[in-house]
């Protein structure tokens, strides 16, 4: 079963009844245990990799020694032939054949170790990736659980009841109304400000004699008299 599937099982397990904890703590414990097992397996794999590499180094050394010995004896055989000692040369050649036989065996062991090391390294990389993925997923599930608890706490604090029961659309309406109120307030404030500025301007214009300083009884009477004369 993939990690994702396990997590879905873990989450679904607890979510069968409304209001119940979402995470099946038992399932999480199992995942935690699997994670610990994987980590242990990883440790073991690393230990055996170390051991195999040590053994491989030993075989490696033997192979090198054999190669050196073969080269050395080939020199001896040539020297014996140069001296015309055919039987000595044959003895040396037999020795070389022995070394070569041993070399074939040791080289085979060495190749075996090489492929073992490659496999182990691959396995370790895979396990490490799995552990990382599991770590991440478990942490998300646990986080979700904490957030769920936090929301329940918040609901209790917020309204003395479960805020899940408070309608989301009502909340949205409240927020919008507040926003509208703020906008109205700032619009009103701006209007007020401009009015104040306007009043101020009028006063300054009057003081400067540019705008008529306002109608009075006598000025109205003057105007009416003029109208009468013209008519």
């Amino acid at each position, binding site marked *: 079963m993939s990690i994702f599937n396990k997590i879905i099982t873990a989450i679904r397990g607890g979510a069968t009844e409304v209001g119940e904890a979402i995470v099946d703590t038992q399932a999480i414990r199992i995942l935690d245990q699997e994670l610990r097992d994987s980590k242990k397996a990883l440790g073991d794999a690393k230990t055996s990799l170390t051991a195999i590499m040590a053994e491989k180094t030993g075989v490696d050394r033997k192979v090198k020694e054999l190669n050196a010995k073969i080269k050395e004896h080939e020199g001896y055989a040539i020297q014996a032939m140069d001296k015309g000692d055919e039987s000595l040369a044959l003895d040396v050649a037999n020795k070389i054949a022995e070394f070569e036989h041993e070399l074939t065996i040791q080289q085979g062991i060495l190749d075996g170790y090489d492929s073992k090391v490659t496999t182990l390294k691959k396995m370790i990389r895979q396990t490490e990736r799995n552990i990382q993925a599991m770590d991440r997923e478990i942490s*998300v599930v646990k986080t979700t659980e*904490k957030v769920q608890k936090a929301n329940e706490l918040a609901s209790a604090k917020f309204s003395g009841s479960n805020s899940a029961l408070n309608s989301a659309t009502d909340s949205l309406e409240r927020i919008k109304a507040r926003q509208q109120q703020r906008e109205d307030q700032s619009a009103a404030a701006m209007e007020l400000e401009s009015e104040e500025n306007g009043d101020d301007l009028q006063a300054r214009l009057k003081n400067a004699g540019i705008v008529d300083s306002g109608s009075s009884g006598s000025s109205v009477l003057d105007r009416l008299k003029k109208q009468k004369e013209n008519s």
Partner: protein
Amino acid sequence: MSNAKLEQLMSDLSNARLSDGTQLSIEMFDGEDSVACIKVEDREEFPIYMTADEGQILCITYLFGEDQVVPQKRAEMADNMLQMNVVIPLSAFSKIGDQYIMFGALSPKSSIDELLHEIELLSDNVLEAIEAMSDYLQEG
């Protein structure tokens, strides 16, 4: 480690404001110091829960409970949510237990500006989402 990370984020956020000057209030939410609660000024109805660990920073907001959904329209709503997921900037729909949520996830290496951007968008997206889903929700 994650708690230290969360505390650091909280202290960075406490002096920050959103791009339009909106204030945030932040408090550690639970006794385990693992969940922070962020409230955007004037939108206190939809608090944002933030958690942080080695893997990611998560910001989650609860939208509404299953009980608020008109049962006959549930499948259509779920379908709509899935389709909208790609289109909504940075946030996605999801569900915890019987609660529909909207969330955003960030790399733990994100800067405080990136986190603020996330919070701002999530807060906007939540209001948009509820508006968009209101046809599927029960009246009142």
